[in-house]
């Protein structure tokens, strides 16, 4: 039997995911050879006590975070692009990252304000406080979008509401920044640059289930998403509960994007670029293939971005968003140019 292109692509991506994981685990302040990484993964001992500790405490959590963030954002972006029938949609289109940003800004900059006191009052501090603030911010924005969405018939109106809510929370953040102490501002700016480092195993206990739930939801929605490719009216005529699917897709996206943003900061471009890359690789519009392929593609690309951010061979570390934007922006442009339908403006 002749191998189908989707099978080949999925298998290739799976191999690349493992390969990029070994590569990503290896790079950093101390370079660890792939052989030692593989030995640690199979036996639990890297052959050098320093390496063993480094792998267990830093490199593995970092690699798993990169896989989860990349896979999650890719699937969330795919959901949004299909739901809004818009190639420019991304996981943050409904204001999730702005909401998370507002939460973090209130918590980091707004000490002394009610919101800052509320977050502090939850008994959390330091890094975890930022995570909780980002999660709450994302949740608040999501709730607002979902409530407003009940009265909105068209997805375009919903899209505009999301963008407007994002703009409004962006303005609030700017207001907080204008009246804040530069040292605190730096903390907020650092969060905004994005990072897959710094996550602990405890963090992963939250991040992994959130991403998994979102991805499983996306997989479960796949047949309905396929019908949605023909537009909402056709989908409804085929028996798709359009409103229910819409709400489910938004919740799945928000769970993923909220969790990833809380732990890693807003990671730009992966959510918009990877679905395009995945479609380009698969050449298919079937979400039952696109969702697993996007998971793998996201994992590969996010890990490679994390590797580049480590600047192998030097001591410096780039902000993750610098790398994702530098790679993501051209990818989006190339993907759009390669896609004849989009280049021709057929819609």
């Amino acid at each position, binding site marked *: 039997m002749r191998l189908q292109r989707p099978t080949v692509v999925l298998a290739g991506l799976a191999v690349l995911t493992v390969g990029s994981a070994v590569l990503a685990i290896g790079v950093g302040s101390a370079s660890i050879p792939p052989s030692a990484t593989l030995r640690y993964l199979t036996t639990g001992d890297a052959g050098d006590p320093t390496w063993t500790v480094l792998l267990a405490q830093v490199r593995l959590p970092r690699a798993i975070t990169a896989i989860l963030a990349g896979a999650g954002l890719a699937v969330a972006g795919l959901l949004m692009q299909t739901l809004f029938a818009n190639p420019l949609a991304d996981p943050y289109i409904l204001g999730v990252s702005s909401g998370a940003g507002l939460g973090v800004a209130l918590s980091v900059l707004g000490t002394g304000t009610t919101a800052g006191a509320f977050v502090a009052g939850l008994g959390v501090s330091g890094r975890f406080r930022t995570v909780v603030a980002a999660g709450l911010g994302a949740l608040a924005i999501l709730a607002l979008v979902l409530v407003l969405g009940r009265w909105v018939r068209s997805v375009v109106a919903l899209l505009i509401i999301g963008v407007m809510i994002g703009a409004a929370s962006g303005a609030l953040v700017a207001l907080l920044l204008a009246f804040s102490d530069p040292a605190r501002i730096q903390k907020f700016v650092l969060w905004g640059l994005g990072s897959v480092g710094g996550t602990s195993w405890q963090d992963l206990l939250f991040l992994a289930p959130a991403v998994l739930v979102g991805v499983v939801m996306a997989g479960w929605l796949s047949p309905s998403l396929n019908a949605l490719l023909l537009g909402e009216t056709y989908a409804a005529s*085929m*028996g798709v509960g359009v409103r229910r699917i819409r709400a489910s897709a938004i919740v799945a996206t928000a769970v993923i994007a909220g969790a990833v943003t809380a732990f890693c900061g807003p990671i730009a471009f992966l959510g918009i670029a990877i679905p395009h890359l995945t479609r380009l690789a698969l050449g298919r519009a*079937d979400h039952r293939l696109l969702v697993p392929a996007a998971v793998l593609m996201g994992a590969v690309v996010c890990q490679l971005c994390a590797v580049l951010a480590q600047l192998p061979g030097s001591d410096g570390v780039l902000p993750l968003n610098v790398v994702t934007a530098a790679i993501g922006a051209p990818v989006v442009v190339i993907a759009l140019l390669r896609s004849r*339908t989009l280049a021709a403006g*057929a819609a």
Partner: protein
Amino acid sequence: MTNPVGGNGSGGRFDDGAGDGVVAGGGDAVAGEAGDGVVGAAAGGDLVLVGLSVGYPSGWRRPDKVILSGLELRAAAGRVTVLMGPNGSGKSTLLRSIAGLQRCLSGTVTLAGDSLAGLDPRARAARLAVVLTERFDPGLLRGGDVVALGRFPHQRRSGTLRPADQQAVADALAAVHAEDMVDVMLARMSDGQRQRIMIARALAQEPALLLLDEPSAFLDAPARIELLAVLRRIAAERGIPVVASTHDVEAAVRMGQDGWLIGPGPLCTSGPVDTLASSGAIGAAFDTSAVAFEPDSGMFRMR
């Protein structure tokens, strides 16, 4: 004016192999003059509208907007019913209401004796299929993908196609002669090819009623005639009512079987298209100060 497929305004029955003998239901009972209501006994799988009012329900500080009211219409199984009316007369609203895509203001819609109201979307989709004017980004969709989507209401949750599903898809593609377009990207198809795929998608739903909103809108003249021929064959072979709206009255009169005519104003009349043409009902609905419908030729002429 040559007529490539035989038949003319006087109602010649186009026969392309299916044979008129297959016509089921009480088709010819739907005879009569303008103003006829539901005629004949409830037959087979007919679509029957009783006292139907369509429009947009009241909203906040906004009363019901009634587009058409008191409709008493029947579409016979096995036959093509063309829904004619001037632009903006409510053809699409009526079709959307029958399809359950918007709520009817009052009255009932029954198909083969069963009310369509209150069916859940999936159950309704298993009974009726629509072809809409809605345009969408074809993206990476291939002809076969689109037709297979029609199996959605019959499918298992996983979306995998069982042999019965594959058979339905193959039958649907064969019905519109699109077997060779399975692997062709939708983006590369002509409007006519794409329309055939969309009809095949509707047929893959194995509907007991097929509704089409302006199916010939983007097609050239030969493709329009061919489309109506395909619809007649589908109606006859599957023994289902096919209702297609069109503003192309000339093609409808030449190729249609039964007609629903909206106009003048909200008035709605029904009957065989040749009767509607010869009785002057079509002229009454469409004539303007500059243009008049000629029943003999089935065409519009400048006055």
